[in-house]
């Protein structure tokens, strides 16, 4: 990969392999950051993401949880437009829309990230196993992957979510089960090319066992691809969570952006012109998804030299 030529101009001060390795990693991280910094849109995306992450973590301090409860909001005005006391107005039950927005960011980010990590984990495991072991393992796993690729994504998620109980954990599970095949194919293809490299032959000839080859040679070379794939898969997870919540298949006890949109729609926010009820949640989704896409594209471009020279 690209870090080989970058390391040449870093003079190693010690020759202990460990120190050398760390130095090399530091150098490639610095190189990565300097390239990333050059992409203004990606930087903007990163800032937007950081703002939303801070908001999600700090939710209890920004907006008390009582604001979400219809019982605690019983004395509040209903359908109040944004104004004093209610920065984003209130809904049909008098609940603060701002509180729903702040707490909803938690679910969207959490489901988006954890579902993606699980998706990538399944996909990478299948891809590495299929690519590395080949033969019938490969044939079986790829057949399975192809079958899953053909099954339409959203209907499968809907059916799974309606058969399982409605909880956040199951939403994560549903997204992961429906979206791993793409990653599996991608990782397998990369493993197949890495496997052909001379250094793998060399390690084998020197007596390295399979576990060692996978851990030290295959995984490190597949990792960048997995990382780029990860950032680009988060938007899909977030959008799927939103859609499932909108269809009433999310966790009924948690405020999420999709659930806010569902409630706003069913309460008739549109015919009442109560834009403050459904615009913030939708705008939040658009911003987070766009931010992840911008960051993911930049990472992909940096890690894949082919894109850097020719591409988009």
């Amino acid at each position, binding site marked *: 990969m690209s870090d080989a030529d970058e390391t040449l101009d870093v003079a190693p001060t010690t020759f202990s392999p460990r120190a050398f390795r760390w130095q090399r990693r530091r150098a490639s991280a610095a190189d990565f950051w300097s390239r990333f910094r050059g992409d203004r849109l990606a930087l903007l995306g990163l800032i937007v993401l950081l703002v939303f992450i801070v908001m999600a973590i700090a939710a209890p301090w920004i907006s008390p949880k009582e604001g979400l409860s219809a019982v605690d909001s019983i004395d509040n005005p209903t359908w109040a437009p944004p104004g004093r006391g209610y920065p984003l107005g209130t809904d049909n039950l008098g609940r603060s829309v701002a509180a729903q927005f702040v707490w909803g960011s938690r679910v969207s980010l959490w489901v988006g990230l954890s579902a993606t990590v699980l998706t990538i984990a399944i996909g990478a495991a299948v891809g590495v196993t299929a690519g590395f072991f080949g033969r019938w393992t490969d044939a079986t796993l790829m057949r399975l992957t*192809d*079958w899953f690729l*053909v*099954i*339409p994504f*959203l*209907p*499968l998620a*809907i*059916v*799974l979510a*309606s*058969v*399982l109980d409605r909880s956040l954990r199951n939403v994560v599970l549903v997204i992961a089960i429906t979206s791993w095949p793409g990653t599996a194919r991608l990782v397998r293809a990369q493993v197949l090319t890495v496997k052909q490299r001379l250094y793998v032959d060399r390690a084998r000839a020197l007596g390295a066992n399979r576990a060692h080859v996978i851990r030290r040679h295959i995984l490190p070379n597949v990792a960048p691809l997995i990382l780029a794939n990860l950032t680009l898969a988060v*938007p899909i997870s977030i*959008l799927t969570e*939103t*859609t499932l919540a*909108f*269809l*009433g*298949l999310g966790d009924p006890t948690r405020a999420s952006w*999709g659930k806010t*949109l569902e409630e*706003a*729609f069913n309460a008739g926010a*549109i*015919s009442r*012109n109560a*834009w403050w009820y*459904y*615009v913030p*949640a*939708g705008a939040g*989704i*658009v911003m987070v*998804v*766009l931010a992840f*896409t*911008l960051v993911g594209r930049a990472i992909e471009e940096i890690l894949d030299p082919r894109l850097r020279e*020719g*591409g*988009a």
Partner: protein
Amino acid sequence: MRARFVAGKVFGALGTFVFVLVFNFFLFRVVNDDPTGKLFRGRNLSQAQLDRRRQEFNLDGTKFEQFLAYLKQTVSGNLGDSFLSRRPVTTEIREALWPTIALVGTSTILSMLIGIMLGIAAGWRRRSKVDVGATSFAMFTYSVPDFWLGMVLLAFFAVRWPWFPTGGFEDAGSTATGLSALLDQAHHMALPCITLTLAYIGEYMIVMRSSLLDTVNEDFLQLARAKGLRDVAVRRRHAVPNALLPVVSLSALNFGYVLSGAIAVESIYSWPGIGQATLEAIRGPDFPMLQGLFLLFSASMIIANLAVDLLYGLLDPRVRGR
């Protein structure tokens, strides 16, 4: 070896269909042992009624017996009766089919045409204003949940400025026939159709653009230019036809999504199609209906995939094998 290529693809599709059949059983009978338990939570149904639903859904006997009963029923074209309407699932689906095909079919074709044209304009003049604008537009629409876009359009063009009806297939109690009925339906379809078209354009645009970018440096384009062809002719006669292949396969694949692609948007506009039916089945939950719908969605994807494979074989001789 033309026949062998086709037969291989058809057999592959059949294999996938068998997998979907088994998977469907697995989803509704194994992931959740007794889905009817979930159905009647919080509802007053007598034991006799419950037993009838269980029997209808073939939930008695061992898993293997259940599987055989399911297989026998499904293969004979009987998908059971809907729990909600008590009518056969096949009838329910057939009635919802046409509105969805009309709506999603139209918007798929529209977004395909507009997306391809935008993609050509963007890819041919890379980094131009058109390119930057079209790419930003595509990235933006990709980030917008389609149903939220529908809500916003509804708020503007049906509530704020009531140019379009807020939903439904035709005016309530409409007795119009012939052309005026068709116009009325088109008027109702306009807003959901615009929503879906906007949501889909980006994908076609991006694929067309990057495919054209891959073609730009090909030798045959240099040759065409060296021959002295004008820019327009190079683009139209040499670049675009060669770059169109991935877009053709994307389009064919997306026709597999025609039935399942508008679940949330249909519910926003209360469009009486498959999406609306799916939403009602989720609310039930109406398991025979969900099971039938899932089978239908998967089958249309399998057919679309087969079409893509065969189309590729037809258009690209390299795939066909010698």
